[in-house]
């Protein structure tokens, strides 16, 4: 049986002034797959996500989510995705419950189901004891889990995570990975995530695309990509082999500023 791809990108190109952010990006993601876009800051990962979440119309090319054209069917696309941006974006002036309520309303969750769906999303992220507390009292890992709850309250078919563990300490990072794994095991939801942490890609992704300065340099299962270079090869080696640079050597001032801002909000 042929399935409509969860994500289809064909020849995406986009330019910001003199920077070619996307350069012929082409890939498919199957329904139920966990797919990672791996690359340093400035590789084009976030731009790809912004195109897929309808936030940015690509200069050229075609992109669809479950067969819905991201350019022409924006509202329909938004109804089937849950999106967690790179920055910690929960509202610190509200409680955890109120934050999830806001997104339940913006996704038009029926009133009859509203409280049950909010409770379900909060429970799934193990935030029940803290749900009625102001988010300003949460740790960074709890804020990230709350954002996952916000993104899940509309029961999306595609969950989009942009650098889900950036700025988190190892314990909080591991907590987020556990939730994504549990979610995947429970719902079979398609997950698209970006990361520049190799360990994260290895832990979570069935397939990864390595991006560098706009194009995808290589794409495949992490174990297959490593095997091509030898038994001891790491994803870092694969990245260096295809791009000639290390993952952590890249990134501009804007990326640093954004990462610092996120880290500052984490406290």
């Amino acid at each position, binding site marked *: 049986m042929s*399935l*409509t791809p*969860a994500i289809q990108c064909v020849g995406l190109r986009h330019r910001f002034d003199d920077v070619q952010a996307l350069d012929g990006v082409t890939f498919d993601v*199957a*329904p*139920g*797959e*966990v797919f990672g876009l791996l690359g340093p800051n400035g590789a084009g990962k976030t731009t790809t996500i*912004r195109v897929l*979440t*309808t*936030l*940015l119309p690509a200069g050229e090319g075609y992109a669809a989510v*479950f*067969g*819905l054209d991201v350019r022409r069917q924006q*509202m*329909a696309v*938004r*109804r*089937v*995705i849950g*999106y*967690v*941006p*790179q*920055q*910690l*974006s929960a*509202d610190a*002036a*509200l*409680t955890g419950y*109120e934050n999830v*309520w*806001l*997104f339940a*309303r*913006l*996704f*038009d969750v029926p009133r009859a189901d509203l409280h049950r769906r909010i409770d379900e999303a909060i429970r799934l992220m193990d935030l029940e004891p803290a749900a009625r507390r*102001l988010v300003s009292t949460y740790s960074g890992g709890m804020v990230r889990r709350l954002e996952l709850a*916000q993104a899940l309250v*509309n029961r999306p*078919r595609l969950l989009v995570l942009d650098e889900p563990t950036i700025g988190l300490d190892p314990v909080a990072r591991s907590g987020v990975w556990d939730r994504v*794994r549990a979610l*995947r*095991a*429970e*719902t*079979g939801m*398609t997950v698209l995530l970006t990361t520049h942490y190799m360990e994260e890609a*290895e*832990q*979570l*992704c*069935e397939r990864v695309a390595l991006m560098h300065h706009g194009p995808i340099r290589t794409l495949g299962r*992490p174990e297959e990509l490593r095997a091509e270079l030898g038994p001891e090869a790491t994803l870092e080696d694969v990245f260096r082999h295809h791009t000639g640079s290390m993952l952590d050597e890249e990134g501009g001032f804007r990326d640093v500023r954004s990462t610092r*801002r996120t880290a500052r*909000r984490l406290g």
Partner: protein
Amino acid sequence: MSAAPAERRAVSAEVPAAPGWWRLLPSRVLTFWTVEIWRIRHDQQELVTRAIQPALWLLIFGETFTRLRAIPTGSVPYLDFLAPGIIAQSGLFVAIFYGIQIIWERDAGVLAKLLATPTPRVALVAGKAFAAGLRSAVQAVIVFILSALLRVGLIWNPLHLLGAIAVVMVGAAFFSMLSVTIAGVVLSRERLMGIGQAITMPLFFASNALYPVHLMPGWLQALSTINPLSYEVDALRSLLIGTPGRLGLDVAVLAAATTVGIAVSASLLGRLAR
């Protein structure tokens, strides 16, 4: 991958049903109102600190100029004449810096997250505009209470008070959209702060909030005519102290200005989110 891959499932392209426009706009406004009420409830101290400025205007400026009789306001005591102007001013001061919140939301990724929901941009900014309106209305209620304590001769008819609150909400919605529009052009918190401070006082002084228009020099009268704050104050005076005015025209101008403000802000939202 360490987690066992879940079984692949066939996923249909079925999309959850979307409510029509006629439901979407009020639904989003109600949603942002609710969130604003929660914010106010969690930080009541801000209401108190924001009440200081209007209290000083009424207590010091109002009481002093009432005694001086320096500003001729006919048979209406100056303090009564001033109170509607101060109510409008307190709403203006709340709303004119609302663009800073949008820039903060842009920086924190909140705006991107909101724009990735099935909310048309017009509905999103309308929701924000009337959330600012709600906060200004709460501020207006505090000035009503201050006015009662100072024995200002307002018309305490509940319908008139509700009408005044509605006018304050629409006025604040306009000024918050003016602020979001400036935010969409300058894109930086610091520049918006500077511009906000630069235009707040001219908007206030080039209106009828402190003195009757006929006392102004000709050029200031012309500015007052195109200043939405003048229409807001005029409507509030009609409702709260019974000054003969043009309530229908005032409300129509405010509603039209707010509609234009929402449309312009919505068109700039994409620039802010980029």
